[in-house]
């Protein structure tokens, strides 16, 4: 009896700790994700002013900049440590996509250029590309057939 009681208490303590941790994780990912979104918007405004380009072009440059930063941090090994703390705050923005591509490429680099790097670079990033294209094609076809273009 004592043993089971201890087990239950331990389980409850663990549960309490994990829910606390969950709340903290949620707050951290909200904060970090928000910061990245704000940084993106700030970059868009700066690019518009600095290079005199339209807002849609500026958005493309902003996404490329974020991908460059995320790939570089992944290559240095910093991104993994940051993502272990911020979790979804770094994985859901476009930085997560860049991280998945770069980390897959770096892991497979040792197996050679063709059958290592070449065939494994889309190992993780392929999830996003595949399901994005399939869903976009199906939804696009539905909208085309229903006939409500623009």
């Amino acid at each position, binding site marked *: 009896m004592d043993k089971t009681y201890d087990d239950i208490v331990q389980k409850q303590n663990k549960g309490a700790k994990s829910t606390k941790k969950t709340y903290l994780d949620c707050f951290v990912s909200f904060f970090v994700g928000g910061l990245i*979104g704000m940084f993106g918007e700030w970059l868009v405004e700066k690019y518009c002013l600095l290079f005199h380009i339209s807002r849609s072009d500026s958005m493309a440059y902003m996404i490329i900049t974020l991908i460059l930063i995320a790939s570089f941090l992944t290559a240095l090994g910093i991104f993994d440590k940051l993502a272990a703390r911020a979790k979804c705050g770094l994985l859901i923005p476009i930085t997560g996509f860049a991280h998945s591509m770069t980390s897959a490429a770096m892991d497979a680099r040792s197996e050679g250029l063709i059958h290592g790097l070449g065939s494994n670079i889309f190992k993780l990033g392929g999830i996003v590309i595949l399901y994005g294209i399939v869903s976009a094609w199906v939804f696009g076809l539905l909208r085309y057939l229903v006939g409500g273009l623009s």
Partner: protein
Amino acid sequence: MLLVRSFFFCGFICLIAQVLLSNTKLTPGHVTSIFVVSGAFLDVFSIYDKLVLFFGGGACVPITSFGHLLIHGSLAHADKSGFLGIFMGMFDLTASGITAAIIFAFFFALIFKPKN
């Protein structure tokens, strides 16, 4: 003002993802694919376009905008060249992001060596 809106929108998306990740058995791969599909779904009735107008760059940063850009490009191309446009316009808008990710991943993998 757009900065604050971006902060709250992008943070809110990440918050939903974190809640999904920690309360269910889904892996980060599942969560990101769910968000891409939902982004594509939101653009079927041009809802995401309004979100981008209202929230600015904050709505373009999360992975949901990837799905939105895919379907947006294909629908815009379908407007011009009919049925074939759904196939041809798929990468019109996301091409820069995908190309950048591939190029940077390739060169960084060549230059740097993995730690651990």
